């Protein structure tokens, strides 16, 4: 075997330490959770309901907000306008502020006294303590992942292809739907998956807006507070497993689609 130079050895060691740092706590928790605990937790109706709720709300939030977020990403990739870098900075804001603070901000924004809250009340929708409020909180903290990925995707589409489509008689809308969107699709899907996964795992912002109905991160927090570490661990392990499975399944789906397209060629 080739001998490593001291430098190579040092960076390999650093890499291994970082990996260990990520894997060790998770592995420790998995080891500390017995299969029987995990099994009984999986059969717990409250746990099942919260996991279903978490997945559905995050999915709904992702799809609903994507409708406007994808055109915004296109705008950022293609058009120059005044204060564009300020807009890009604002989009990244939810990533850098504390999520509990984001939750407080959203609570103020959707509470009954606010304009949005009043509009919601008018159609019988109360955001606070409602899945809609949870969706808003999830979307607030996870939107930057979608917008940035989609923007990179659109930037990667050669402008010449869009120009060519225009000279071939296509309207700007047709150019967007038949050229830009399909060619940026891979990045957009990866952004959608990231947004969905990030939304599902959100705790800080959601708990400010809605303790009930209880999404799984809140449930884990509640079990820890009420019963201690041992009771919180099985739910955590189960939720991590499910999040990972969803994440991997979606990634595989996106990849299969790409491979299928390549195979068609």
């Amino acid at each position, binding site marked *: 075997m080739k001998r490593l130079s001291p430098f190579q050895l040092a960076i390999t060691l650093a890499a291994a330490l970082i990996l260990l740092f990520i894997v060790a706590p998770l592995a420790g928790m998995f080891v500390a959770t017995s299969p029987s605990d995990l099994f009984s937790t999986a059969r717990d109706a409250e746990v099942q309901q919260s996991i279903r709720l978490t997945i559905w709300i995050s999915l709904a939030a992702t799809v609903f907000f994507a409708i406007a977020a994808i055109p915004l990403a296109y705008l950022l990739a293609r058009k120059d306008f005044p204060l564009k870098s300020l807009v890009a900075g604002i989009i990244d804001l939810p990533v850098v502020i504390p999520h509990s603070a984001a939750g407080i901000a959203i609570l103020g924004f959707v509470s009954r006294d606010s304009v949005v809250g009043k509009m919601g009340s008018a159609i019988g929708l109360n955001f606070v303590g409602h899945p809609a409020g949870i969706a808003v909180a999830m979307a607030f903290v996870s939107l930057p992942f979608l917008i940035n990925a989609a923007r990179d995707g659109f930037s990667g589409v050669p402008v010449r*292809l869009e*120009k060519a489509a225009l000279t*071939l008689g296509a309207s700007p809308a047709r150019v967007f739907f038949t*050229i830009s969107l399909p060619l940026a699709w891979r990045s957009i899907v990866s952004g959608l998956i990231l947004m969905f996964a990030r939304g599902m795992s959100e705790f800080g912002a959601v708990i400010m807006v809605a303790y009930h109905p209880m999404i799984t991160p809140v449930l884990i927090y509640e079990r820890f507070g009420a019963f201690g570490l041992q009771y919180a661990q099985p739910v955590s392990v189960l939720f991590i497993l499910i999040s990972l499975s969803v994440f991997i399944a979606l990634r595989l789906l996106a990849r299969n689609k790409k491979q299928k397209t390549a195979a068609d060629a």
Partner: protein
Amino acid sequence: MLELRNISCRFPGFSLTNISFSVSNGEYFVLLGESGSGKSLLLEAIAGLNKIKSGSLLLDGRDITHEKIQQRSIGLVFQDQAVFPHLSVKENIAYPLKGKHLTSSEKSDIIEEVTHILQITRLLNRRPETLSGGELQRVALARALVQKPKILLLDEPLSATDSKLRSELRALLRQINRTGQTIVHVTHDFDEAVSLADRIAILQDGKIVQTGTPQDVFGTPANGFVAHFAGIHNFFRVKTKKVSGQTIAYPVENVPVISTDSPEEDSGYMLIRNEDILLSASNFESSALNNFEGIVLDNYPSRTGMEIVVDIGIRLFAQISRESAERLNIRNNGKIWVHFKASSVRLIAG
């Protein structure tokens, strides 16, 4: 007919100024210029992709200066072809036909007709990434042609191809033009321009400096830039004949010029570099196959010595040093012998 009247466009750090020319129906018009001269920007302005600041653009008498791109009836083929990578060849070619109120059999007929001319019918179900550069170029041409554009704009269509493919594509472009398709073709390549153009416009720094037939433009260059572009003052339209394996070019009937080039066609252009022409006081035996007696029409100093204009039935420009001019005692209307090698005579089909 396409008419540009005093068109000006502004871009960051560059502008096109007072561009005027017209292209008749069925004409093959070439815009020749160095890179950075604004050729592609002008083409995109004609297509509607770049805004025209002042002046007007007319197509068959209709003002289309501010017409929407989609309604201009102008097709544009980009230098890098811009074939959509996520669509099959057939989907690419059918792209402009959507929303044209055609039945699917009418669409198929149009695609069949165009792909037959371009010889790409067998490629219809292929994906673009499996095509060669030449095939992509044909697909891009087919896609532009199915719209039946009044004007077909080509941006450096032969620049990314090897020489064999280039002559194939040239023949194809001539064939498309012969079907009556008006073509405006942008290039920086002198040979390409001369070989394809009915008329040429020379673009320099965003301005048109000369317009005319290749013979008008390069036979009597309007300025040093045009002359430099050709690199050559001795530029003639010729008919060529093969006589016992030798190519003889006739700029005029009684001046047979021997060349080592063997063009496929029997007409074209002849070019001889000024530096390749040798002058002498009397005829002498040499390896040069072309030897003519002529009369000095003019002589004047040039950047590198003296330029001598000699009439041998055609006007030839020779470049010699001042010392040689003195030694030969060059005088206007004096007799002189002109010699040049067959290998220095370039023939371009066109």
